[in-house]
């Protein structure tokens, strides 16, 4: 029997919450080797391996089809691949790790409340400031899809930001940001506000399956999905 691989988060709250759900689902995990091992197996199902990876690596491995299942944030999966719904199935939303990917602008931009406002500002930006509007983000794919396809805004530039994105406007690295936020408090602390129609994605931790033909009549695949869904 071929080995089925499930990639789970290797650290933090999301790791504990995932373990709790798998426990409730009757999919007890035991570590292979010692407690700190990054490998495990599911008790009672043959040939199912657990591999512990970082949340962003899990998204990547799902995109490559290198793992069969993964638990990670929807934002990372959608950012990491084109046509996510064709390549993977979001089997279950797990109810933790909730956070929104949002468009946020300086609070003091009193004239900008909607994406349409932002479109006006972006269209004029070059004439006024000699450069395009700059957006700091690590979500360049989600940003493009949202700005171009949904709001017809083309004229802006992305400044890649790998951390402390909320600080970018005050630091002069960018004019606005696209970032993930759970309570919005970090945004407020940095005097940023979310546009009224600026929620790009309501993300949370999901059980995600890489779509593979071999899964179709594999009882282990349906058993894992059903068990997790039943535990929610």
């Amino acid at each position, binding site marked *: 029997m071929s080995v089925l691989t499930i990639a789970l988060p290797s650290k933090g709250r999301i790791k504990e919450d995932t373990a709790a759900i798998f426990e409730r689902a009757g999919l007890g995990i035991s570590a292979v080797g010692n407690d700190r091992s990054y490998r495990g197996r599911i008790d009672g199902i043959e040939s199912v391996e657990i591999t512990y990876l970082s949340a962003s690596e899990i998204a990547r491995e799902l995109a490559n089809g290198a793992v069969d299942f993964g638990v990670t944030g929807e934002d990372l999966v959608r950012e990491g691949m084109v046509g996510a719904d064709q390549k993977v199935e979001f089997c279950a939303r797990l109810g933790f790790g909730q956070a929104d990917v949002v468009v946020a602008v300086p609070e003091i931009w009193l*004239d900008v*409340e909607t994406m349409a406002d932002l479109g006006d500002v972006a269209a004029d930006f*070059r004439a006024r400031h000699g450069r395009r509007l700059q957006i700091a983000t690590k979500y360049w794919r989600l*940003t493009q899809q949202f*700005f171009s396809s949904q709001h*017809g805004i083309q004229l*802006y530039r992305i400044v890649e930001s790998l951390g402390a994105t909320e600080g970018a406007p005050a*630091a*002069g690295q960018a*004019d606005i940001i696209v970032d993930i936020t759970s309570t919005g408090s970090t945004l407020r602390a940095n005097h940023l506000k979310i546009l009224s129609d600026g929620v790009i994605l309501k993300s949370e931790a999901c059980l995600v399956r890489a779509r593979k033909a071999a899964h179709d009549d594999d009882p282990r695949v349906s058993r894992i999905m059903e068990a997790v869904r039943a535990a929610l």
Partner: protein
Amino acid sequence: MPLIDMPDFSTDLLNEFAARRTERVNTPVIQPAEPFLDMAGEDLRRRIFLTESETGANLCLRPEFTIPVCLRHIETATGTPKRYSYLGEVFRQRREGAHEFYQAGIEDLGDKDIARADARAIIDATGILGALLPGGKLELTLGDQAVFEAVVRALGLPLGWQKRLIHAFGDMVHLEALLDRLARPQPVTGLDQEVAELVASGDEAELIARIDRTMQETGYSTNASRSPAEIARRLKEKLELAETRLDGGALLLLREFLTLRLPLAEAPAALAGFADAADLKLGPAIALFDARLAALANAGADVSAMTYRAAFGRPLDYYTGLVFEVTVSGSSAVLAGGGRFDRLLTLLGAKERIPAVGFSLWLDRIEAARAK
């Protein structure tokens, strides 16, 4: 350059370019990525091949020729008018078709006789395609951003609305959404009451001062890109624009204009009739449209195979007037695409305004059409 994989009609093409008195130029395959992303927007990022130099500079494989040819023109500072031609590989990530393929074309820079230069670009494109596809029936679709701009101006909308509509020209979904907003104005909500009162009082200086104070207090002002005055003025403008309602008649006119699609030869009369019936003064844009058509007819172009489509444009801010596409009868594949981009050279750093018009030929599609 390995010539072995070039289309077999490349020599004919180069002879055509030479006969049309163009100067052939080449540009490096590896280009700085910034000008492309700056001009076309971030959407281009997923369609080009990006890489980085050792020092972190963004580079890309040449996705098209117009920008490199224009940059080269600015760098070499050899003056205008200039007629450049190019033939070489371009690289794009496409859902269908190869990622590397040949393009060729002409960029005509600096001819101040707009109608004549426009007509020449069309004649060059159709003439070359005609020579490469003997027996194929060419069809040309023509659009004109300047005519749309004239219609929008003549409707008497506030400047802010004119800019929005003109900016969206060529993107029908976006344009429709704007027209809906004009039909059903939405009041601005969520504005802080004190701010709303300040705006209503018309005390702009106090509003600016207030914004400035907040910026200072929040430590945002040092690096603020948009100044307090810019924010205050746009806030005022936004509140005015939100109340703008285009009456049903004018909206209908704009929608009717956007559905115009007719043989090019009939377009001047139709546009004049439209302007008359709607009591709109379209002025120089129509004069230029007519002069271009006259220049085409004078040069012996087959105007009967040309269609004017009023809504046809490209939603990029450097296109200013003519746009056109050429297909061969029975196929939707665009074999040549062109247009006027009078704003591009200054955007790329030219000191003076240089009128420009050009087109590119999709050699892979032409090859496929020749094989049929």
